[in-house]
């Protein structure tokens, strides 16, 4: 079991409040990703759950038990650090076994668990090496091995893949997700990379400036962002957001439309009944083969980004018409909140 509950958790460093009353329910066995721009408090929130920072207010419960004042090791959680934080003077075997040794587990049980974890993570041949003799990916696996041998109630990951190169990151992303599904252990994962968030998470928690902006499945966040911030943050390329007469005409203060929901039609076109059509000039076109990104300057709106599948033959300076999918328009009120 590993059900983590945050109740009005706040954190201040001196006079600066960095977490403003976080309420969150993490179900057992779920993969939850904290995502947000740097400095939004996602790592701090993770460290509060881990017990590496003291909370300033509120409660943290694990399986219904208040652990707010409990030492990190007593919470039954394991953490994988961004820097891996392996013990450089110990072999891989001793690194993985350290937590079990601290728990005074019998030697043969330690050996069994280390061998099992090494098997899962393809580390069997490296058990007698020091961390300094391993590659980045292998070190990452040792850090994960150290976390799983303790059979914790939950894993905490603090941007664990950010030090790896792009190809390895994709591979480790798959491995981490697969491992979590296999072990069925609750995982809390911090990242600023929204692709990681979208692909790995059962549930995403979007944070900004120490506040939880929205909690939901990746598709919920994509399809129904709760406010302008989430709308702009989730999705790549980011959603077009604009104010002005066109937004007013559609009954909103801010109107949002994702690039993939804009159809580009060369030349001038007339809008079908009940639809919008925005004419403009192409200021840039990116041809990727699989997709074409077209940046269009629309008078009265500004620059809109449209994503078209396949190759679209447009050039800078061309006149085009953008036809938004009317069912995919996102309307936000003056408080920047999504309108029903």
């Amino acid at each position, binding site marked *: 079991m590993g059900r983590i509950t945050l109740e009005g958790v706040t954190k201040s460093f001196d006079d600066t409040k960095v977490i403003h009353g976080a309420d969150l329910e993490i179900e057992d066995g779920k993969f939850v990703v904290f995502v947000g721009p740097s400095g939004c408090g996602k790592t701090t929130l993770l460290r509060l759950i*881990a017990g*590496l920072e003291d909370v300033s207010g509120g409660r943290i419960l694990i399986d219904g038990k208040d652990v707010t004042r409990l*030492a*990190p*090791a007593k919470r039954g*959680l*394991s*953490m994988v*650090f*961004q*820097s891996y*934080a*392996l*013990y*450089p*003077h110990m072999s891989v075997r001793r690194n993985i076994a*350290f*937590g079990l040794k*601290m*728990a005074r587990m019998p030697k043969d049980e330690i050996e069994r668990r280390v061998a099992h974890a090494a098997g899962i993570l393809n580390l069997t041949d490296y058990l007698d090496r020091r961390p300094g003799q391993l590659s980045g990916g292998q070190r990452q696996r040792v850090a994960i091995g*150290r976390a799983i041998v*303790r059979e914790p109630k939950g894993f905490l990951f603090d941007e664990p893949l950010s030090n790896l190169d792009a190809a390895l990151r994709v591979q480790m992303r798959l491995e981490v997700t697969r491992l979590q599904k296999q072990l069925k252990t609750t995982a809390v994962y911090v990242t600023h990379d929204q692709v990681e968030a979208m692909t790995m998470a059962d549930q995403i928690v979007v944070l900004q400036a120490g506040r939880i902006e929205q909690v939901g499945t990746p598709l919920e966040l994509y399809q129904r962002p709760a406010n302008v911030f989430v709308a702009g943050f989730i999705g790549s390329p980011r959603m077009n957001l604009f104010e002005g007469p066109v937004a007013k005409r559609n009954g909103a203060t801010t109107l949002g439309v994702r690039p993939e929901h804009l159809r580009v039609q060369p030349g001038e076109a007339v809008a079908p009944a009940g639809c919008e059509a925005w004419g403009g000039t192409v200021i840039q076109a990116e041809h990727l083969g699989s997709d074409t990104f077209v940046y269009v300057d629309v008078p009265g709106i500004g620059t809109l980004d449209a994503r078209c599948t396949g190759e679209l033959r447009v050039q800078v300076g061309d006149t085009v018409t953008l036809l938004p999918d009317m069912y995919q328009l996102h309307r936000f009120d003056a408080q920047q909140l999504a309108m029903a």
Partner: protein
Amino acid sequence: MARRTPVPRIVLTSVVAWTVGLVIFFPILWMLLTSFKTELAAFSSSPSFLFFHWTTENYVAVWTRSNYLEYAWNSVVIALGSTLVALAISVPAAWSMAFSPTKRTRGILMWMLSTKMLPPVGVLVPIYLLYRDAGLLDTRLGLVIVLCLSNLPIMVWLLFNYFKDIPKDILEAARMDGATIGKEIVYILAPMAVPGIASALLLNVILAWNEAFWSLNLTSSHAAPLTAFIASYASPEGLFWAKLSAASTMAIAPILVLGWFCQKQLVRGLTFGAVK
């Protein structure tokens, strides 16, 4: 491929290095030579460098006149004792300052260092009176305490500088793994800081061994270390250069040998973690 240093430059730097080295080493060399001279030759107004009558009579005289081993034993006890006590205090102190710093940590470190700027003679009278009342005068314990306190700032600084380069993540990982503070220090911090701890230890032993001010003022016979042993040849019966030199050579020999074998560690310690 590394660029080759031009020959004239090698010659020049070698000459400069050897000159500086010899200038620094000369007093010790001269002491060593004088210790093998007769008192007459040692006093001679035309000193000879190598061509004199070599004799070991000074060593025999010093050995028979005073109990060298007792002084040496006192030095060992005082140097090692003060170092171990200082280590036991400075490791946790440096650990807490390096890994849980507060706004005042820098200030405390500066304040600790500032005590080293105070001339010891400034606190001689109060310490002497305290020691007299506490019955610590002329005891090894008394010297262990005062030398431990006087070297503590340097130990804390050295260790602090070492510790702060150790990533905090690693200690936090140990904490997540269930290590208590004690185990964290024993299993993680200490092994990672072995070079730093070793050089701090060594430096402290050397400083305590060579310390003269407190040992001369707070001891007379029972707890007198080798520095007092040297001083005992300085004045009462007039100056005996040759015997004084022999006594000094005997006093510094153990620490010189220790320093020779550990010079690599010492250099690391003295550069305060700048050389890795």
